[in-house]
């Protein structure tokens, strides 16, 4: 007597086995090989496809933008799932320049692990996810066209301690989140200055903030842009201050795939256009008036009344007017998402225009 042999069922099971395994059973390719595979892939998407990213975006009818899944001031969903923030505004500005609509964009929240893959595989057109521009990332098959936010590692301390500069934190205990470059930056900075400090690390930002609030540490260190959000989570935000000094450079830049110069130009000039508009005094609330009156030659060129610079990018002549009308200039976006109008109250600092003591410098549109 033989054991049962249910044929149809088994054949099905067999068929199911065959399909998924080859694609999945490649555990040998680990992180060290990743860069290589990224490169081959980039060449494929960059040169293999006849049409550039702009043509693909236009054909699709909307932009696909990778954002952070929730960082105060940079990309936050509201109660209806509508995204806001500085990074989000940048993508909306791109969409406005291309489609004359800030809503012609899909936001795909990206985890920090998957963000570069998403860009390489063509899942997203642009990555605006408070990503620090570094050499190793720049050479790994992606480009960072322009710096949209200058950040740096800072410190949150109690006002009562009366600390004004980082060097006064000598012999202090500092709370950090594990597994970030924060710890290395801190070590470099304190060691080169011959200062001592003690570090207490935690698994996540909640625990780190909790330890700082409970008095376990004198200071809490991470990127300044996040510290403003963290301060709001404390029981008494007024009792804490963020030191203006930064001990590292964290330039946040949108990322694009290598090998598509037109798209790279469009992304870079979208940011520059927002800066140039601010510099020329073209704001969201006066853009139509400026277009009618067209005071200065500079403003005329920016607004597309002279020249036809938008066409050179593959866009329309009024591309900047579209951006400012729908999203605003850089200052508008900053004020709406990070500045004094928001609970975060992040000062412009390095992100002020170059002629106001900052680093934001838009090359001329001409």
């Amino acid at each position: 007597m033989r054991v049962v042999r249910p044929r149809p069922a088994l054949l099905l099971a067999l068929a199911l086995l065959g399909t998924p395994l080859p694609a999945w059973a490649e555990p040998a390719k680990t992180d060290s090989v990743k860069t290589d595979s990224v490169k081959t892939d980039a060449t494929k998407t960059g040169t293999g496809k006849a049409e550039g990213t702009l043509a693909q975006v236009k054909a699709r009818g909307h932009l696909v933008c990778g954002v952070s899944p929730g960082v105060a001031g940079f990309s936050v969903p509201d109660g209806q799932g509508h995204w806001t923030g500085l990074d989000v505004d940048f993508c909306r500005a791109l969409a406005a320049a291309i489609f004359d609509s800030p809503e012609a964009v899909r936001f795909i929240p990206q985890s920090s692990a998957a963000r570069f893959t998403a860009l390489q595989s063509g899942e997203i057109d642009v990555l605006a996810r408070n990503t620090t521009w570094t050499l190793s990332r720049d050479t790994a098959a992606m480009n960072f066209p322009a710096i949209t936010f200058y950040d740096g590692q800072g410190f949150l301390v109690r006002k009562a301690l009366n600390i004004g500069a980082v060097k006064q934190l000598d012999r202090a205990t500092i709370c950090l989140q594990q597994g970030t470059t924060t710890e290395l930056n801190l070590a470099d900075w304190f060691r080169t200055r011959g200062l001592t400090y003690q570090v207490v690390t935690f698994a996540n930002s909640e625990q780190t903030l909790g330890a700082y609030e409970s008095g376990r540490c004198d200071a809490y260190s991470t990127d300044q842009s996040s510290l403003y959000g963290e301060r709001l989570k404390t029981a008494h935000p007024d009792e804490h201050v963020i030191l203006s000094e930064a001990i590292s450079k964290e330039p946040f830049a949108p990322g694009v795939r290598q090998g598509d110069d037109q798209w790279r130009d469009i992304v870079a000039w979208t940011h520059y256009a927002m800066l140039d508009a601010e510099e020329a005094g073209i704001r969201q609330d006066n853009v139509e008036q400026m277009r009618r009156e067209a005071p200065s030659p500079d403003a005329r060129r920016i607004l597309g009344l002279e020249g036809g610079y938008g066409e050179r990018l593959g866009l329309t002549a009024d591309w900047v007017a579209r951006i400012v009308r729908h999203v605003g200039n850089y200052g508008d976006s900053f004020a709406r998402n990070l500045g004094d109008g928001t609970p975060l109250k992040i000062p412009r600092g390095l992100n002020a225009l170059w002629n106001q003591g900052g680093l934001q410098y838009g090359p001329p549109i001409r």
Partner: protein
Amino acid sequence: MSRADGFLTEGYVRKTLIPPAPPPRRLGGPLAWVRTNLFASWTDGLVTVLILAALAWLVPLALRFLVFDAVWTGTSGEACRPEVVGHPVGACWAFIGEKINYLAYGSYPAAERWRPNLFFALLAFGAGWMLWLGAPKRAWGAAYLFVVFPVLAYALLAGMPALGLVSVATGLWGGLLVTVVVSMVGIVASLPLGILLALGRRSDWPVVRYACIGFIEFWRGVPLITVLFMANVMLPLFLPGDLTVDRLVRPLVGIALFASAYMAEVVRGGLQAIPEGQMRAALALGLTKTQALRAVVLPQALKIVVPGIVNTLIGLFKDTTLVSIVGIADFIRVLEAARADPRWSAPAVPATAYAFAALFYFAICFGMARYAGFIERRLAAGDAR
């Protein structure tokens, strides 16, 4: 010799009568119930007192946080700060209230939200049809839930321009919707797949047997998080540039295969508990092997493993939160994103978000466990006869 005799006599034959005991003081009523169930012995009494003390300490704490000190209305995080409210603040339910649409649908377009709503309704209908034992034509219910419903759900949620349903990219799905979709796909795929794999593993065709063993051991041998990382981070790099698999489908396939490997082992446990004689008797009666399997072996085997199946399903439901690590906006992920909102920054908000998540997951898992308990009692009724 005599010693053994004495032992036997003393051990097995009483020589004296037991002294008559007085009748029990009380057999019914609440007091008797308390006596027998809570204070039957000295240790029972001690444990009861300890548990009561713990409850007396914890329940008021929880109630104060969840209800009495909670803030129910407000338009920003300021409303949930103690200095504004004037007393210590518990949960900030106003935050959940403001974000509830985002928590339910993610960024699913507001004008199209009737589609996820209809999806939930169709799911509830199908689940009710299949799970309510008195429902008419339950076989049709199963066919609906396992075949018709997935097709309907796909057309409804992803869109079908031919039917006038605008397509909605899966990147816009989020929250409760994604959690339900991921766990439903896991449950609907893993049960039949798991049964097939379990049967395959006991087959006497070596090719099939070893293929099933290989499949099961491979998927059980890798952590779910590795599977998800492979699906969402590595897989797109290996695929040719013009071939893209949807970013929600990739982890869905991974979870379904992963869960089916576990389900296969649970079902195999049940199959092995059925004596060989059952199958032989069924064959001797003239049933074909498939009939015998379907009508005799599988019903008994599945009945045995109901607790194991439910255990796997509950585990699967909770494991779906891992997709948030690879950037899928599931319920936990949208909660995290929602509380990043600087307008709603207050010390009470993170605890509120996690309390809400805990209540949500507990309600669903407890519901599943209770239903399984009911099914078990129902199936055991046959044994009692």
